[in-house]
């Protein structure tokens, strides 16, 4: 009986650890997919190729940093803050336009590790 309990505890701990390790390596795919949808719906009109946001970012930070979906240096708090407080000429986005669950997903999407760019 005692041995069985121990096994269960070990199994539980092992799966908890492996879950945590996985979360650090690859964010929840469903969340990232939701974030991509939020980006497409709420951000892409300015922040994809040819958009106003991309253009102004290229002016300010250079072309390499102008497409948000390709950035590898975005920090979750930074993304959140810019969305809600605006930045330079970017208007602020309310919780009606981007509700908190979509914000979480957007942050996960924009900060997810990127596959290396194909040459």
């Amino acid at each position, binding site marked *: 009986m005692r041995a069985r309990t121990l096994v269960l505890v070990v199994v539980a701990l092992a799966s908890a650890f492996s879950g945590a390790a996985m979360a650090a390596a690859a964010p929840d795919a469903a969340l990232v997919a939701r974030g991509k949808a939020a980006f497409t719906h709420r951000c892409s009109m300015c922040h994809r190729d*040819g958009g*106003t946001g991309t253009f102004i970012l290229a*002016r300010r930070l250079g072309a390499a940093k102008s497409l948000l979906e390709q950035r590898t240096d975005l920090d979750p708090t930074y993304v959140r803050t810019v969305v809600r407080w605006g930045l330079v*000429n970017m*208007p*602020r986005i*309310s919780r*009606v336009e981007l509700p908190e669950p979509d914000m979480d997903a957007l942050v996960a999407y924009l900060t997810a590790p990127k596959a290396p760019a194909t040459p």
Partner: protein
Amino acid sequence: MKLILPPGLTKTQFDQAMAAFARAIGKEWVLATDEDRETYLDQYAPGREDSHAAAGAIAPGSVEEVQACLKIANEYRVPLWPMSRGKNFGYGGAAPRMSGTVMLDMGRMNRILEVNAKAGYCIVEPGVGFFDMWEYLRSRKIPLQMGIPGNGWGSIVGNALERGFSPAGDHSNNICGLEVLTPTGELIRTGMGAMEGGKAWALFKHGFGPSWDQMVVQGNFFVVTKMCLWMKPEDEAAISVEVKLDKPADIGWFTETVTPLRLRGVLDGYVRLTSFQATATVPTLRKEWYQGRDSIPDDVVTKIRERFNVGWWNGPIRLSGYSDVCEANLKRLLDGFAKHTKQEFKVTRLAGNAVSGPTTYPLQMVNWFGGRGGHIGYSPVMPADGKLVLEQFERTRRRFIEFGLDYSGTFYNDGRSATNVNLILYDKDDAEQKERVRKLFVALIKDAKEQGYGEYRTHLSYMDDVADSYDFNHNALRKLNERMKDALDPNGILAPGRNGIWPKAFRDQRGKL
């Protein structure tokens, strides 16, 4: 943004009202943190952002929830400002006229309820954006077109309620039936929709008795919950005529040529002519051209024109419809031009459905000064007469030069009137320049008034000044509007101050910023 309370309310009363809203629509849709308030500030504020600071926002998800909110607002005397998507940049964004007002954000009500290709209309809720409708039409291959403003980020409903426009014309003219709530919560359908089961709501504008739709546009008597809007069937063909006029004075003969053609339906929508400046403000920074604090001088104007290969005045004219009719109309137009100039006009023949979709591209013009920018528009309406248009342009440009600001003007001609949109760009962090903007704006209102011209729409900060300029018989129309306001909205809770219409409860706020 720190809380500014609605005038006359204590913090306790305000908190009680917000708690009541939360009970009615769910606490996640009552937005009243400092960060929430920040998201409803006017991004392009020509003055101080806290001149028009919302106390928070509420976002109901259904007509019944809007009704519940109106009831609570009346009970607690909380002023509400309805908005659809709040992208009204240049006119106040998502902000209210009076600080302390709570935004009634209708963005969650965003269904496209019907699109009828045969009869050419749609029925939409307030939160539907131009991008949403574009996507809907394209993905279903529905052969209808819509007028899209230069900034395509906003809503179909909010834009039409501002009397917004595009080259397709005045969008409020396409409204054909509305569902609205009075400030006290009665649900009403206008026009043919006033009949239970009425089948022609989106087909015939007026119904029986007075026609109310235009009372809703630019007013503060109702909250709109549904809008029927006419759309245009896709054209068989289109012809684009590139107009580039070399001299400022060319706008005189141009106007005389196109006005009668527009009046007779050879041309449609708004025939527009824009000064050279617009070509530079979007893709370049001012400092690439000129460092001075005065208005851009003529030698720089020449450089800009050379680099972009544009005229002093520019504007494509689009002819569209059946291809044989387009060709006949093109001949009339070019014959008209030939009476005044030997210039060749580049003509491009296009498929009828070759129309551009919504974009936010022009928004980057506010980066003209390099930092945090903004713009406001001064847009008086005047006769579409060549001599008067030329005089209006010259007078306005002189004022821009006097106040050291870069002239950027467009004339939109509908065959009878010309709406002269003057874009005033500024650096939000340059207090001295913003003061010059204010002085220019006041001077322009005065100049236009002397000519008998008045603005068609204005920024929150100038609503009272523009309303003052409509002064026949001691502003009799405003007095009538305010009598209406008091009758429909006894507690004055809906959009106090919009377009200069103040309810009794807040009339002492008129002119205060």
